């Protein structure tokens, strides 16, 4: 079976400055793929290209085996590609309930959206009337995930889920991500801090300066190589 998400030789740039130099990546149904690497490696750009938000200069974006390079991100979102951006992307001045209400654009009722969200993250039910900006970082990230799940995604793209969160909360969130993947969703996670995501990832890719330098099972070899990359060694 074709992978649900496939990037082939993707090149992308910002104002003529190349950020991705031919990225290849595949994520199958039910798989968690971790895209790791230091700051400025091009991880977020890869996610943005996968979501159709940033145009690729060359290369192909395939979803479910169909070439959708250059397709409108709204079409991709409607089909089931969900990007949860860095910084959570919740509306801080709206309540949790209203944040969820925004996701009814997918054609689901408010009750259906809340049912999915509150079943996955019961704490959000308790905070339903609270303004999202006053939630803790972990709760905001749960809300962001819940909003994503409300769209019934087939491909979930997560950017820096762990940013600014305590390790325990991160582990809890990644456990939820693993559970989401077990339901057949293809998950691509971008992370700068690898430890938590490698515990749940089926496959990992290490990105440096716009290129995937190594990929494979998240074993000890990959962890050692990652440490070397972060510490600036050439191993």
């Amino acid at each position, binding site marked *: 079976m074709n992978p649900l998400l496939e990037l082939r030789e993707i090149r992308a740039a910002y104002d003529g400055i190349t950020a991705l130099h031919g990225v290849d990546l595949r994520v199958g*149904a039910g798989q968690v793929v971790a895209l790791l690497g230091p700051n400025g490696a091009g991880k977020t750009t890869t996610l943005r290209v996968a979501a159709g938000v940033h145009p690729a200069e060359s290369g192909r974006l395939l979803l479910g085996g169909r070439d959708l390079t250059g397709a409108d991100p709204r079409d991709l979102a409607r089909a089931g590609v969900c990007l949860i951006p860095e910084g959570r992307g919740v509306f*801080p001045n709206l309540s949790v309930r209203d944040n969820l209400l925004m996701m009814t654009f997918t054609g689901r009722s408010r009750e259906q959206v809340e049912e999915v969200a509150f079943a996955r993250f019961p704490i959000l039910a308790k905070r339903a009337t609270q303004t999202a*900006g006053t939630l803790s970082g972990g709760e905001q990230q749960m809300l962001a995930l819940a909003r994503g799940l409300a769209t019934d995604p087939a491909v979930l793209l997560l950017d820096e889920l762990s940013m600014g969160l305590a390790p325990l909360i991160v582990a809890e969130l990644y456990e939820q991500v693993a559970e989401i993947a077990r339901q057949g969703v293809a998950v691509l996670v971008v992370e700068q801090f690898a430890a938590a995501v490698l515990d749940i990832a089926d496959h990992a890719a290490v990105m440096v300066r716009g290129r995937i330098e190594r990929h494979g099972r998240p074993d000890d070899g990959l962890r050692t190589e990652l440490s070397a990359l972060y510490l600036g060694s050439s191993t």
Partner: protein
Amino acid sequence: MTSTETRADRFVRELAELKIPDPAAGRAALWLRLGVALMAAGLVLGASAYFMSHGTRDPLVQRDALALALGGVSAAVVGSALFLRYSLTGFLRFWMARQSYDLTQLADRLLERDIRHELNGNDTASR
């Protein structure tokens, strides 16, 4: 949809059914440029029609100039509409993103202030 269909199967099916237009990357920019070009062309046509009608006493040529001027006005109107549509979209998108960012910053600042206030309160109480 069959009951045994997985989310992945449904995704592939829905993608196959989805009527996705040809790659649209950069199409907005193209329409924007077309809008500007039409506006400019409209002005040029209008001006040329003016000089054309003033340079002759022949009513037939003047009628041609009239038609040309109307074409110019139409081109300018269509061009302005295209320009407004595609420049406003970009502006509003940017404005929304900016608004969202500002609100996040504000919420963070308020939260930080509340926490600091709470901590100060606790300090005073413990003394």
